[in-house]
Every structure is written in structure tokens, then in C-alpha cells.
């Protein structure tokens, strides 16, 4: 069976349409509301969704996503709840693929192989786990994910050396997530200068489509990058948008409109 990420990215390329990937923290602000945020994102036109399984020590995340992780855990979110969430929501996603984003101790503690197969059977199409380099020799993360039919998505940043880009190029699966700046997640604006040179370096070794995230928060930025990458990623800004609204209903509307307006 063809991975939904491949179908989606293929369709976008065929239609010459720029893709949008959005992010939620499962169980934030609570399980029922995160379900409604997810549906609003898809309604707004998101092409792919990252479902973050909350973790106590998310070392690549800035304050917005960190706080959402801790709040979700505080509310009692378990890894099993996140798998159940995916199982419940995947059938309602149409052609929009779901990816699990989390940190390696979560799948490692669950049992890496079982995590991959359970994720796949819950309807997940890919994994984004920032703290497991594909060439770290002991975990066999790449092999276990791909054997389960999942795309293990890797991350490159402007600090990546050509040697590292080459390593990632060998493993790249589904797409490669490029960060617009060297740093942690957050809606802080990134300087788009030098980006073309960076994605150019990446393209020399990476044949799969590219997504770009970190500090992407408005239509102007998306317009600047739409010709150099296939997909823009919005994370912290979704949470910020929801949180700035006076109530849940208007928060959901705001999230939907935010996604809807990004390609304008």
C-alpha cells in the first residue's frame, strides 16, 4: 500500500501547489479540544499534520510547545491515549497523512518495534523524532520504522555540514524537514536570507521533497519560500493563535482562518 505522505506530496507536485504541514500537541489543551483543533486545521486546508506525543523533556522545543507538552501531561495524557487518538482520527482525515512527532525516549520506552507497528496500524504515516540520528548504531530506528511502512522524517538545519547532509540524504524517506534557522521551535521570525543557499546544499544530496519550518508564521513568509521548498510547516504559531482567542469556539475559527490564509 502506498504511503499517504507520498501520495500527498505527489499530488501537490502535480498540481504545482505548495503544501502546508501543521502541528498539534495531543491532549492540549485537553483531548477533546485537540481533536477539534486537528479538524479545524484540516478544514483550513492543512495537507499534513504532526501529532506531537507530549514528553517531559522536549529539548528541541521552545516555550510555546514546551508548555503545551507539560500541560497535556499534567492533564494525564498517556502514550496509549495518543495512539488511540490517531486510531480515532485517521479515518476522518481524507487524504491528509498524520505523523507522530515526539522524542526518542517515548518510542524507546514503549518498545521501538512495537511503537512503529502500533503507529502504522493506528493510521500514522510517518515519524518525526528529532533526537535519534539515523546513523546512531544501536537502535535500528530507521529500519524498524520503514519495515512498519512509516516514513522516518529527518531534520536538517543551516548548521548541517555537507557531510551530515550527505548522511541524511542516504536515509531520507518521505521528505526532509529543513529548519529555517538554527534554534529551537517557536514563532520567532526567521531571517529568510541565505535560505536558498541552504536548500541548494540540501538538494545536492537529497532527492525527496523538502519541508521548511521553525519561525514560519505568516503568508508573506510562505510566499517567500514556496518556490524553494514543497511544504511549509507551522507549529508554535497554531498554538499561539488558538491561545490568543477569547474562547474555544473562536480559537478554532482563528486556527482554521490562519491556515486558510497562509497560501494567500
Amino acid at each position, binding site marked *: 500500500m502506498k504511503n499517504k505522505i507520498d501520495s500527498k506530496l505527489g499530488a501537490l507536485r502535480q498540481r504545482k501547489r505548495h503544501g502546508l504541514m501543521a502541528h498539534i500537541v495531543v491532549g492540549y489543551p485537553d483531548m477533546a479540544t485537540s481533536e477539534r483543533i486537528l479538524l479545524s486545521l484540516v478544514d483550513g486546508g492543512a495537507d499534513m499534520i504532526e501529532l506531537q506525543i507530549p514528553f517531559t523533556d522536549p529539548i528541541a522545543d521552545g516555550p510555546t510547545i514546551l508548555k503545551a507538552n507539560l500541560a497535556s501531561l499534567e492533564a494525564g495524557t498517556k502514550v496509549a491515549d495518543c495512539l488511540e487518538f490517531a486510531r480515532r482520527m485517521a479515518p476522518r482525515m481524507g487524504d491528509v497523512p498524520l505523523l507522530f512527532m515526539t522524542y526518542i*525516549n*517515548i518510542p*524507546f520506552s514503549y518498545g521501538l518495534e512495537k511503537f512503529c507497528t502500533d503507529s502504522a496500524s493506528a493510521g500514522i504515516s510517518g515519524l518525526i523524532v528529532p533526537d535519534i540520528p539515523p546513523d546512531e548504531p544501536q537502535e535500528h530506528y530507521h529500519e524498524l520504522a520503514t519495515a512498519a511502512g512509516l516514513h522516518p522524517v529527518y531534520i536538517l538545519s543551516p548548521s548541517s555540514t555537507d557531510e551530515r547532509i550527505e548522511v541524511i540524504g542516504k536515509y531520507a524517506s518521505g521528505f526532509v524537514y529543513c529548519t529555517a534557522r538554527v534554534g529551537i521551535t517557536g514563532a520567532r521570525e526567521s531571517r529568510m536570507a541565505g535560505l536558498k543557499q541552504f536548500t541548494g546544499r540540501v538538494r545536492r544530496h537529497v532527492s525527496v521533497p523538502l519541508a521548511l519550518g521553525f519561525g514560519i508564521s505568516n503568508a508573506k513568509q510562505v510566499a517567500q519560500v514556496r518556490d524553494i521548498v514543497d511544504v511549509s510547516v507551522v507549529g508554535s504559531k497554531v498554538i499561539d493563535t488558538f491561545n490568543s482567542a477569547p474562547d474555544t469556539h473562536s480559537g478554532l475559527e482563528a486556527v482554521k482562518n490562519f491556515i486558510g490564509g497562509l497560501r494567500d
Partner: protein
Amino acid sequence: MDYITDSFSHRGHFGKFGGRYVPEMLIPALEALEQAYLQARDDKKFQDEFLHLLRTYSGRPTPLYFAANLSKQLGGARIYLKQEGLGQTGSHKVNNVIGQALLARRMGKKRVVAETGAGQHGLATATVAARFGFECEIFMGELDMARQRPNVFWMQQLGATVTPVTYGTRTLKDAVNESIKNWIENLEDTHLLVGSALSAHPYPSMVRDFQSVIGREVREQIMEAEGRLPDCLVACVGGGSNSIGLFHPFLNEDSVEMVGVEAGGFGIPSGLHSARFQGGRLGIIEGYKSYFLTDEDGQTRTTHSVAAGLDYAGIGPEHAWLHDQGRVTYTNVTDKETLAALGLLMRTEGIIPALESSHAVAEAIKRAPKTGRDKIMVVNLSGRGDKDIFIVAEALRDKEWLDFLERKVQEGFPDDEK
């Protein structure tokens, strides 16, 4: 059996532990650090300057003191105390900080960031940063700042920015996370000055190498004093840098028993402790694989110890390996036993150890009476206890201290009146 692992030829692994589990954006920085360290390690000029600073700036070698009164009272082994608290900044932390500062300068870095729990590593970092002219930012959990105020004060006076970490457990673990994040945001000009033998490769091995000066000195000093190797080494284990520094030069000496002492907090059954070998799970957190106090999902648990420097959910990967190999015995003592040990050492020897180091003393007090008088035990006093005055006064319910504080607060600063 050979217990010396060359982690550099195993991508930072000690058996299944260790490694470099970090976001891709940190890989180039860690590779550069590893290269720079390996060059420095083999550079005689670097090593000479390191040893020169340890001698002239930090006061090494620290004494190995025969605790005759304590030994006699316990009625067993001859107890020697390695007095790391007598060096500059009052703990062993400065050994590693001087080494990494030299390395940071060699790499052209202008700024250092560090995590701290008890504040001893932060204090050492702030001190050495002042000496080297580095800009310095220390991350410290809000809870630790409240209980280790004297160190916060001195770090600030030394010119460092002390940034409170206000989320999570608000202790060392969260300070570690925040220092890594700050490094990610400032890779160009900043060196992450990790304070213990943990985090991603090459930190566990590099920190151990810098701290091994402790064990090498003990070897020479005990040969001079007793003409033979010790029978037993005892050290407290938070992240594990003072202990690995003491143990490492003895690992292949079969006759030397080694004991690492974890923080038992309110006791293991209470669940409020920091003893990773009592219910810790194999995990991968903060860049390395080791044992961590986590729940079944892999989320880190709240830990506790009266000693902020031991109040941490993870343990350095080489310790995890030495534990599984059976080479080092890991035990734990409670807060209560620790305070009693502190009192006993003060009254018998006139030495005030840090609460962290008092854990090692407490273990020695348990062990020595069961040990023959011909045996030699070396206990690492990793730091001195001045910093703990608030915690100890509170634990001892010292009324006069409280009166003093109340009076001080009422008086305010004299200038406030003008």
C-alpha cells in the same frame, strides 16, 4: 577483565549506554568539540597549561587526609578523606570547568553556558569565566535557586547571568534542558560547559578525563601514606563526575572495591528519592542512554534529595555500564542519614562537607564498622558545606539562625533609610 572503555572508538558508547542522541542541528557542534578535545588531549602544551592552572589557580593537589578520630570512633577501616572542598570554588567541579574553559578558548568561543543544581558547577563556571573573560549564563531551576541562594549570589557577583528555569520539576534536569536549548540557539560563539559526566558524546568521556586528576592524585597520595592501594573507594553519585574521577584510575585494580552512593531522599519506599538504580528504567534522555527515573511511558519522574546536586533523574552512562558489569557497587543513603553523617564528621574531624559529599560519608559510616582495621577506605569529599548553611540550619531547626534571619530582614539594608 578490562574496565577501561575507549568510548571514542565506539561513537560514545559504553556498552549499550551513552551515545549521541541529539537533534541533528547539534551533531556538527558535537563533532567539532570531539575533534578539538582529542587534539587537546594529545597536546602536551594544553595538558601542561591545564595542570598548571589546577596547581596555581585551584590549589591542587588537594590533600588526602587520614581521619584518625572518625576511624577510631567507627572502629574499622582506616578512613582517608580526599578533600576536594579545599580547592578554588569549594568543590571538584572546578577541575572540569578549567579543562573545558581552555578548550572553549582554543575553539575561539566567547561565551559559556552551563546548568547547575546545587550551584557548585555554576559557581565554578562563573569563576573560571571571569578568569578567562567569557560571557557567562547559568541556568538553574527555580527550586534550586531558592535553596542554594549563597551560590546564586556569588555567581551574580562574579559577573554571570543566572537564569531561573520555571517549568517542569524546576531542578537540575530542567536546567540541563534549558542550557542545551540555549546552546542550540547560540552555536556560533558559545560553548556548552556540561558539569557532569553525562549528556551526549563526547561530554561523559571528556568530563571524566578532566576529573580523573582526583583518582590519580589519590593513587600517589595513598602510596605515599600507606605504601599500597586502598581497599575501598566511596563517592556520591549525582550525574557522577566526582565518583568517576575518583574511580577511573583504579578500575582495572581488582583489589579495589568501589561504592557509588545515590541519594535515597525520604527513603526508597517513599518514591521521593534520586536513586536511579532503585527502580530506574533504561532510557534515552538529554542526549544519552542510561538509567533514568521515569514512569512506564518514559516521562521523567519528580526526584528528591536534600542535596540539590544529587537531585537528578539520570546517571552518567559510564556508571550505568560499570553497574551492569558489576564492577562498582551502587547503594543509597537517606536525607536523614546524610545529615547525621554531616554532624558526625564536623564533630570528630572539624570538617564541614557539602550535603552531596555527606552521602559518601554516611555510607562510610555504615561500612567502616564491618571492615577490618587493616583495611583502607578512601572517601571523596567532593565539596565543602558552606553553601548549605540555609538547608542545614533549617533541617536542624536552629532557632538562633532563624532569629538572625528575621532580625536581618527587619533591619533591611542601612542605606534604604536615606
